[in-house]
């Protein structure tokens, strides 16, 4: 690394104080196999700032009580913190109302909720669901389940060799038969930022509601559900610097209101007799049982942290990392980048003809570098590109050009061993 001093004073860092940010994330000072951790697996999960970690401790130390139930002080305090977090999320997504914000376990549960509740109530045999060729399994399998149950067909918007959706095909894919569209905002394998606005507009011409899987978009891009005009949007807290086990489903109030409950239990009911029940109002109708209160509050704190940095600034900084890493990786012998769309988030998948991603992953691990190797839960997409797996480096606001240099050097060593 000849330019270590130069890069630490890099202009991009001027956007915000990178050193301070790194100090906010305690895990980043860990060493792995005796080397400083270079965490480049952010598309799988992001690390957590100290204030998020502290909020969990604080909750269990001084606030813990069940929400919406007790009349005692602690229950009121925890209910307020829980509902305040919902309002933060509502504002973060620019939703119309906090009734439109449902807490789930994560993106997967959010999507299953819609597939199961909306799907059971509205789909019938012969109907069609539209997805893209680059869905994560979590935005594919739930639709396959309901499609099988209802005898429906799944239509796929194809992807070109650069990893961009072929949107000219939209008019051939949407039809009177289409009853739903489930689309990823950003591809977890390729990094492509999809033109979801155009897909949503097309879908709406056919009166088709759209669910956006925003798992990979939420920490990289400003997400405004009113501007997007999507019917549903799902994301996970742990990819937004928040805790695991907490996620969000946004849904337009009118649709959520008409949907039957997903799970039955406490908190989601209004009146219960032995034979039937009436259901609670939104959003509680979809939050059966005791919610993940602590992590919901932690997610609110993570959103505060992100907003303090500014999502636009984060996006700009991550883009500079993406450009630098792409340019450096492209120079390496035999390396091919999979996913070269014009509009990308800070995710780079790459392969070699003769070196398997798992070997790359194991070697980099010994350099302290954490990347993801495998099919990234997108087997149909890997099949489309005729590859079993890729190595994937994905960046977050706390990564630096120095770390990319360490990655490049690590990959060079792998190339040397397998020469």
């Amino acid at each position, binding site marked *: 690394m000849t330019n270590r001093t130069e890069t630490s004073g890099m202009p991009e860092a001027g956007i915000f104080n990178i050193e301070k940010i790194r100090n906010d994330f305690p895990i980043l000072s860990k060493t792995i196999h005796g080397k400083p951790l270079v965490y480049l697996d952010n598309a799988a999960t992001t690390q957590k700032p100290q204030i998020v970690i502290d909020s969990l401790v604080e909750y269990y130390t001084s606030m813990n009580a069940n929400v919406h139930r007790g009349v005692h002080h602690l229950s009121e305090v925890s209910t307020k913190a829980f509902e305040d977090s919902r309002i933060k999320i509502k504002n973060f997504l620019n939703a119309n109302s906090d009734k439109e914000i449902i807490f789930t376990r994560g993106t997967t549960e959010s999507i299953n909720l819609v597939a199961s509740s909306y799907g059971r109530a509205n789909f019938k045999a012969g109907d069609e669901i539209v997805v893209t060729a680059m869905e994560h399994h979590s935005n594919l399998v739930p639709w396959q389940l309901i499609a099988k149950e209802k005898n429906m067909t799944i239509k796929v918007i194809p992807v070109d060799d650069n990893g961009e959706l072929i949107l000219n095909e939209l008019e051939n894919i949407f039809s009177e038969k289409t009853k739903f569209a489930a689309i990823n905002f950003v591809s977890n394998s390729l990094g492509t930022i999809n033109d979801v606005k155009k897909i949503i507009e097309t879908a709406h011409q056919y009166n088709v509601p759209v669910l956006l899987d925003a798992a990979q978009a939420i920490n990289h891009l400003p997400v405004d559900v009113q501007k997007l005009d999507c019917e549903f949007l799902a994301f996970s807290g742990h990819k937004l610097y928040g805790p695991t086990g907490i996620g969000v489903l946004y849904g337009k109030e009118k649709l959520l209101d008409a949907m039957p409950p997903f799970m039955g239990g406490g908190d989601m009911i209004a009146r219960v007799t032995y034979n039937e029940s009436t259901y609670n109002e939104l959003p509680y109708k979809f939050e059966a049982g005791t919610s993940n209160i602590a992590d919901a509050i932690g997610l609110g704190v993570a959103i505060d942290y992100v907003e303090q940095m500014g999502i636009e600034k984060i996006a700009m900084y991550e883009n500079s990392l993406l450009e630098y890493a792409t340019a450096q990786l492209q120079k390496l012998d035999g390396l091919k980048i999979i996913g070269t769309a014009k509009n990308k988030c800070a995710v780079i998948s790459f392969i070699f003809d003769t070196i398997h991603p798992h070997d790359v992953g194991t070697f980099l691990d010994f350099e302290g570098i954490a990347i993801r190797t495998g099919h990234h839960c997108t087997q149909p997409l890997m099949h489309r590109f005729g590859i079993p*797996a890729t190595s994937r480096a994905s960046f977050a606001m706390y990564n630096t050009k120095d770390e990319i240099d360490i990655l490049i050097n690590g990959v060079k060593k792998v190339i040397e061993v397998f020469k």
Partner: protein
Amino acid sequence: MKEDLRELYQQVILDHNKSPRNFKKIEEHNHFAEGYNPLCGDKIDVYVLIEDGIIKDISFQGSGCAISKASASLMSSLVKGKPVVEAEKLFEKFHDLITGKLDEENSLEELGKLAVFAGVKDFPARVKCASLAWHTMQSAIKSESSSVSTEEKI
């Protein structure tokens, strides 16, 4: 290369990865199985010709990491010409080796060339890479199914 890594990626493994033996489809075979590792998407086809309880010929095709490719290559060259029962016994020993259950002092010798996989036991995530070819071979000789997944078998 670091010590643990050198232990995992021994020269023999790198060589077999680069030029795997029996890496083809033998037309004359009476047993076949497809092995699949859903964790990484790797796939291997194993073709076996068994006559009078003896593995007369064996080959494989597919994609995989250095560990899985070298394992398939060494497996095929070691069981070729051996009685089926012996091949299965060897697999048991090999499986014990990579999962750290083998008494290495006493048994390493019997494993011969397979001893190069001793390093795998320190990499739990890579055990499936080393065992896939063997599971698939076993499945082929039993013809118990045409598809075997390492999710169920490690």
